[in-house]
């Protein structure tokens, strides 16, 4: 048997320098001890260290399947999104924390000893969990610590036993509520909701914390950065951030052509959300195109001028992209749903994890039943341009392309023109394709043209794949 292990998540940079393959092997052997009964000779193992990844916090299962890996070890930063295909193990770096400063800043930030506080950690600081809780729980009886809890059958994190995964009911016997989200698990006292708690986060500010803050935006947030050793209250800017997302929704409402960016191939259910988004976008009378383009950058997205807005499907931490640098904004699936699904309203609640939007998810809102909507044009004024925008709720199935000439029932004679967004765009372009110029150009014999694909024609020896 051959075991291919895929190490990823920036393993190369983060491994101690001078560490060679054998060292890694040795390291792995130690790690895997509780998980696998190693009944085969470790020297025969192939080891692939993979650092090619879309986003270093997610597990790239596709890449693993390409090399036929049997198991993945994820090292470093992680968003703990579940993946479904391969056994996965997380290895977290243990970063040092000065516990005393952490505790004292906690005391400063929460002078009231009865405060209900949830402790959240960056994955790298998970190891201080028990020590910190021991120091604080005597003073603060209402504190609730979170534990890492990797969702999914085949996922493990270092030092965790498998038995814990079976806590599926969210209600404990004593009425306390267990919340599991973003790979964290914590307990809320009975009768209290998450809004009654404040959150104390240990780690740098970054995607992880922003994700927590956006999701639990009604909670007050404090953070402690172990590197700078400072604690502070965070909640001021989150309203601003939410408002900015609201602007993104308005942009999404104005858009008529939507690009769906597939930013993950690993997170479970990504195909389902793509299908759901396509349906939602179509029902709202917009067009959608799908793009899989690996790592996003400004130049790549600006290549598609026809697209008015992009939806990024990625793990919760990567979904919140600051798109101000991009030529066209990039929104999250939740924002697209708010823009397109009439039944979903913007209430300040925010969902970063697209799995919550799926049927069965906690925040799922079904599309309005096509029969309930009067099939007509509804007019609305765009809040960005001030121009009129028509939201056409097309309940009908897309007209199948094979019957191009077949007649379509006109919408109660109220339709004036069939707006074709692609044609409109083309009309506004200065270059509209090759011109025939009949009679203007001399007749020449056909020549052999270029061969190959656009990125690397055959006659071009040196190619630059840098974009």
């Amino acid at each position, binding site marked *: 048997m051959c075991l291919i292990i895929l190490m990823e998540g920036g393993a190369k940079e983060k491994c101690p320098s001078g560490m060679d393959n054998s060292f890694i092997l040795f390291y792995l052997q130690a790690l895997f001890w509780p998980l696998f009964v190693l009944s085969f000779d470790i020297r025969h193992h192939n080891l692939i260290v993979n650092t090619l990844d879309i986003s270093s916090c997610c597990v790239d299962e596709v890449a693993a399947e390409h090399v036929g890996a049997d198991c993945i070890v994820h090292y470093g930063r992680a968003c703990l999104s579940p993946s479904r295909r391969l056994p996965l193990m997380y290895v977290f770096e243990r970063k040092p924390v000065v516990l005393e400063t952490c505790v004292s800043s906690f005391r400063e930030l929460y002078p009231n000893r009865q405060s209900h506080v949830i402790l959240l950690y960056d994955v790298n600081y998970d190891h201080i969990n028990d020590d910190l809780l021991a120091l604080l729980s005597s003073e603060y009886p209402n504190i609730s610590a979170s534990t890492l809890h990797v969702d999914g059958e085949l996922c493990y994190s270092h030092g965790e036993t498998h038995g814990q995964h079976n806590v599926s009911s969210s209600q404990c016997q004593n009425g306390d509520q267990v919340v599991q989200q973003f790979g964290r698990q914590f307990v809320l006292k009975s009768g209290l909701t998450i809004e009654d708690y404040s959150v104390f986060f240990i780690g740098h500010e970054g995607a992880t914390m922003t994700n927590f803050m956006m999701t639990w935006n009604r909670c007050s947030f404090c953070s402690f950065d172990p590197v700078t050793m400072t604690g502070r209250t965070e909640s001021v800017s989150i309203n601003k951030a939410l408002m900015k997302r609201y602007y993104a929704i308005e942009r999404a409402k104005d858009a008529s052509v939507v690009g769906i960016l597939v930013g993950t191939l690993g997170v479970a259910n990504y195909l389902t959300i793509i299908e759901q988004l396509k349906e939602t976008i179509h029902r709202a009378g917009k067009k959608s195109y799908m793009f899989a383009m690996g790592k996003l950058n400004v*130049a790549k997205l600006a*290549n598609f001028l026809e697209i008015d807005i992009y939806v990024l499907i990625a793990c919760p931490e990567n979904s919140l992209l600051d798109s101000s640098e991009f030529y066209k904004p990039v929104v999250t699936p939740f924002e697209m749903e708010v823009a397109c699904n009439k039944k979903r*309203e913007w209430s300040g609640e925010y969902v970063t994890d697209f799995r919550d939007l799926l049927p069965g998810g906690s925040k799922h809102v079904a599309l309005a039943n096509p029969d309930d909507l009067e099939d007509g044009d509804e007019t609305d004024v765009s809040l960005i341009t001030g121009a009129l925008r028509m939201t056409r709720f097309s309940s009908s199935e897309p007209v199948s392309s094979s019957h191009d000439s077949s007649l379509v029932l006109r919408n109660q004679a109220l339709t004036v023109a069939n707006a074709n967004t692609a044609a409109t765009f083309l009309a506004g372009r200065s270059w509209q394709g090759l011109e025939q110029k009949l009679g203007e150009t001399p007749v020449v014999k056909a020549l052999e043209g270029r061969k190959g694909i656009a990125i690397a024609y055959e006659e071009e020896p040196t190619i630059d794949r840098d974009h």
Partner: protein
Amino acid sequence: METDLYDEFGNYIGPELDSDEDDDLEADDRDVDEADEDDEDEPADADEDVPGMEVVLHEDKKYYPTAEEVYGPEVETLVQEEDAQPLTEPIIKPVRNKQFTLMEQELPSTVYDMEFLADLMDSPELIRNVTLCGHLHHGKVKHSLRYTDILFTEQERGVGIKSTPVTMVLPDSRGKSFLFNIMDTPGHVNFSDEVTSGIRLSDGIVLFIDAAEGVMLNTERLIKHAVQERLAITICINKVDRLIVELKLPPTDAYYKLRHIVDEVNAMLSTYSTDENLVVSPLLGNVCFASSQYCVCFTLGSFAKIYSDTYGDINYTEFAKRLWGDIYFNPKTRKFTKKAPTSNSQRSFVEFVLEPLYKILSQVVGDCDTSLPRVLDELGIHLVKEELKLNIRPLLRLVCKRFFGEFTGFVDMCVQHIPSPQGGAKNKIEHSYTGGLDSDLGEAMAECDPDGPLMCHTTKMYSTEDGVQFHAFGRVLSGTIQAGQPVKVLGENYTLEDEEDSQVCTVGRLWINVARYQIEVNRVPAGNWVLIEGCDQPIVKTATITEPRGNEEAQIFRPLKFNTASVIKIAVEPVNPSELPKMLDGLRKVNKSYPSLTTKVEESGEHVILGTGELYLDCVMHDLRKMYSEIDIKVADPVVTFCETVVETSSLKCFAETPNKKNKITMIAEPLEKGLAEDIENEVVQITWNRKKLGEFFQTKYDWDLLAARSIWAFGPDTTGPNILVDDTLPSEVDKALLGSVKDSIVQGFQWGTREGPLCDEPIRNVKFKILDAVIAQEPLHRGGGQVIPTARRVVYSAFLMATPRLMEPYYFVEVQAPADCVSAVYTVLARRRGHVTQDAPIPGSPLYTIKAFIPAIDSFGFETDLRTHTQGQAFSLSVFHHWQIVPGDPLDKSIVIRPLEPQPAPHLAREFMIKTRRRKGLSEDVSISKFFDDPMLLELAKQDVVLNYPM
């Protein structure tokens, strides 16, 4: 909950509960079960007629009759759970009738027949479409006896807010009836957008000028606007009585004062118009004099007619021609001469017009008991005893009304000097129609043909009494609009190429609007104004209504062009976040209701409302809170919009490479010539002109060299944006064909950049970007939009930042009227708000001073109140947007420390404004400049030793 288990106080009176059941949950279940059983048992109870003896379980016993038994089956009974509704909310809400406008319940009786009015609509030559406008409190409304102030808020505030159309039949001095469509517009400068929408529908204006105050701020603006819109201008000098009663001017001085007003108006007309024939003069008949309060209104002609009626045998038109100017009457020769026959003889106007007026007034005011009846008898005015006992004012009004008769002078003036809809149509559509005039449709409109294809231009939306729906108000330019007819509504973005902004609607009812009541009609032919129900939904501000089919070549009428800018900004949010949809609906409605209002979501996610001034926004907020959405709304402190600009030329050529390193664009930025930005914004010059015409404009007016003038690529951020992109590359250095292939992308990058400047995401203004050099990849693949657009934007930003960037803020022009002793206080108040006075002069013939000043809009909040406090309410001010001006100080100077809650010294202001705007928008505290520069560019900077006082 089961009703009969509880008494009216909510006490439980049902069957006993098993006391040993502790678990609440189970008890609840049991209750539900019981309830179910009860329901099932009821019909069974009814069957059993014999009462009494049989064994009935106690839970089946019925102690009280059910509500249905008590009240009968037709009464709906509701049982409310405790605390299901807050106490403050009544269980049965009274029906609320929202009403914000004063409307007559029935059609009032008029001196003319409604049928007659409707008949007149078919003869366009007998119709006049007129806008009444003037400065604040110059008596436009008084003229119509405040009948047109229909909103309650208007009456409370004593100021017009909305323009109100009135249609009525008025006779001229020969007794011929004309149909007058009059748009009464607000005089406050904040609401000049309303005037604009009225002017668009009219063929002429009547400009009201207060005889005592003379030409004021808004008077001048209105003249300018009317000239731009090419309307006939007539003047009504109102409140003539103030000269006599209030200022107590001798008749000669009163004449000088009136003549001064006419001269001032003519001076302005000659400034703004190139047409030399455009003059106003009482001799021409386009000036009338009035005192609305006392029902006085006359032109020279109508006054002369009084003479001819009294003495007979006078050619009153010839007589009228001699009643103005330096013409004297020689009583000996009974001839009019140019020279004064004696040293103390008066000008004819004084002798024949003013003196009689003075006499009537002084007789009535001074000596009403003894000599008045005799005098009145002489004038042929007979008053009964009761009328003579009236107070002075009503008496004076009565006397004047009898003496001067109806407002025939006013009617004469309008009829003679304002073209009929037929006569004015050509001029109107030339100015407002975007399509060509030589088509059949154009001809039908120019002839005002009621049988032509329907074309109707709507410019205003009026909400219904309760503020739920909107009706569109417009003018039919050709064809006839019928009630119940399907029409196509073309929006402001409709073009023949892009038909998306159009919708087919069905017209509901049609009305003729007469301020407080409306006359419903079936059809409205060309030339008239009409209020249309049923097609408000697709209309945002203005629209073109046409036939649903058969009129495919119809194009739209131009959107309104306002003479003011909305620069004051407030951010609103609902107190209760869940009421956001309600607020959005309200915002949509106020947006329809106010022509120049802008509501939008900013990048920061705030809902902002942009308006022209404080009063304007106050009215908007009233409507939003009370009329359209009825929710509590939080309002942030008002702010103004800023602009970003440069004051020097970039200190070095800025370049940037595309991410694939295959293209390189080099640009510099420099300020535009003075006045050019305004010319672009006012569409004096348009990018759509052909290259030659565009080049000529820039060569002649702004001295550009031929090369630059011919290579203007774009204006930004849009076609009327005050920035220019110029291709300044030389064909010897740059492959022009290659550069041309990425022109679109570079223009897009430029427009993106100028839309949101690097300082605080506010638009860039007054900057010229020159492309100096460009290296473009040969292969189309390597110069796609994705590579070029973001790069072009970065070059725009770096060139901008190297050219000494500054912020710009809007400035208001303020006109203050105050008595002489308050002038110094006005100076003090202005100085505290960074304002400066440009002119300070007494108003001729009055004790007041006019002070003209400039004040930054951001410091103008509360200025009016402040001014009144400091002058004990004697000063009165009006302010209107005037221009953009650079904020003092360097916004990027990091050495400036902004201390909270302290007024900043002037050089720190730019920095303060920038940081605060960035904070409000949720941007990082300071501009990260290095982001916009490539590494080689940064090296270049270091090499050239460019002194930047801001670290990278």
